[in-house]
């Protein structure tokens, strides 16, 4: 049975502006209402938007701009705030894995972009998440010399540690944590990377400098502070635990108190 839906979608033609000093100027936009009939419950949420866009193009109207890439829940590109929650009402999935069977015939669905000063809207539902890239560039890596490949299992890593590091490494950098947080804080994202590398022996040499630089960059980008509400972890499509934020805090205090950087 096909469904009839009312969509309320954020439309914004001019991008938000953020200057070097961190001053934010909203590009301005508004929620527009669209009626969409013939929505199959088997469609994914993005396919439903594809149908809407085809309809808009046929009517000679501007289609809705939204981010997407792999459409199989692993790339972290799709980013929509659906009915008041990042990636919609279902837990543990990205927007592309949300299906229309999660909605009822006659539903009204609100679709908005991630809202954060550090994620300026480019157009409609697309936001600029390069702040995340700059945080990773600040220290979210291990420096490796080029040359002969090292055997994969040369450094023994305990199963428990490997599992924890892997849990943190499942972060796809979609930004749902920032979108869900009442303070638009990026703590869960930064914590996942700090935690993953702090747990593993390969990350140990740069451990202190990494957390100091990544936290400094996080603050520089204008993300808010953590209130420990747990919204980030609850909405994370990969279910990354708050335990990683606690680990990052330990890493941060430890690094600040003991590193040679004064």
């Amino acid at each position, binding site marked *: 049975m096909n469904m009839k839906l009312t969509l*309320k979608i*954020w439309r914004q033609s001019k991008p*938000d502006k953020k200057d070097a000093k961190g001053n*934010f100027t*909203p590009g301005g936009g508004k*929620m527009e209402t669209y009626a969409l009939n013939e929505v199959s419950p088997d469609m994914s949420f993005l396919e439903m938007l594809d149908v809407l866009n085809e309809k808009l193009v046929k009517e000679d109207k501007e289609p809705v701009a939204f981010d997407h890439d792999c459409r199989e829940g692993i790339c972290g590109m799709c980013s929509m*705030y659906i*009915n*008041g*929650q990042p990636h919609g*009402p279902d837990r543990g999935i990205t927007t592309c894995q949300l299906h229309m069977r999660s909605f009822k015939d006659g539903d009204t669905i*609100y679709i*908005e972009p991630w*809202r*954060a*000063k*550090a994620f300026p*809207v480019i157009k409609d539902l697309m936001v600029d998440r390069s702040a995340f890239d700059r945080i990773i560039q600040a220290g979210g890596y291990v420096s490796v010399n080029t040359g002969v490949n090292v055997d994969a299992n040369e450094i023994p890593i305990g199963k428990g540690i490997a599992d924890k590091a892997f849990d943190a490494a499942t972060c796809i950098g979609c930004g749902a944590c920032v979108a*869900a947080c*009442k*303070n*638009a*804080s990026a*703590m869960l994202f930064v914590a996942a990377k700090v935690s993953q590398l702090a747990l593993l022996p390969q990350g140990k040499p740069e451990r202190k400098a990494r957390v100091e630089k990544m*936290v*400094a960059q*996080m*603050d520089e980008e*204008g*993300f*808010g*502070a*953590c*209130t*420990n*509400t*747990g*919204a980030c972890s*609850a*909405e994370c499509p990969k279910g990354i635990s*708050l*335990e990683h*934020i*606690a*680990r*990052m*805090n*330990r*890493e*941060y*205090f430890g690094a*600040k*108190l003991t590193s040679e*950087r*004064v």
Partner: protein
Amino acid sequence: MSANPTAVKQKPNWLIEMLGSTIGRKLMMALTGLFLILFLAIHLAGNLQLLVPDEGRTFNEYAEFMGHNKLIQIVSILNFAFIIIHIVVSIILTRYNRTARPVAYAYNRASANSSWASRNMIWLGMILLIFLVLHLINFWAKSKFGPIEEVVYEGRTYHDLYAIVKMEFANPLIVGVYVLAMAGLAYHLLHGFQSAFQTFGVNHVKYTPIIQSFGLLFSILVPLLFAAIPIVMYVQSLL
């Protein structure tokens, strides 16, 4: 001396940098908050002596001891300092956090992913601040600056603070304000207690369940016992 070509912009002192970071500000909230939790427990232990049925002798003797003990006086100054830091940093943080989302969502279902108390700490805190001001006017100011009756136990003179409390808690309006404020305290603690440990970085399969259970017990029991004092004393005033 020639300029160092690799010299970078002077960073602030590491400690200031740490405390000024978003994580450092939270550390200040957690440290001061945990101290205030300790204060609550001690304050409650002291105040429960109001309910000892000896016309306030136990309480007055206790108050006299607290008022003249040098260590207690130092701790009480620290306590005021920590309350002020807790308030000032919370306001700075809240204002900062508001700027992190300049455009609000049209539709936000925050209740789907977080507790009411965790999202409203600043407002719960404001209730407690208003209560604190009233509380200080009611008792602290009167005990320090107001005219106080004196009582004599075994030849020693004591300020009759019990009489002030008895008089205040005979007023149902004041009792109502106290009980409501304690409900606010309960919700503030419900999030604050376990949140402080998370901020310190204490999150562990062995300890976090204990912290959470104890936090829940503390958040309910302490405000409940605090609220019981004005209620019991009001009932006593009717008898």
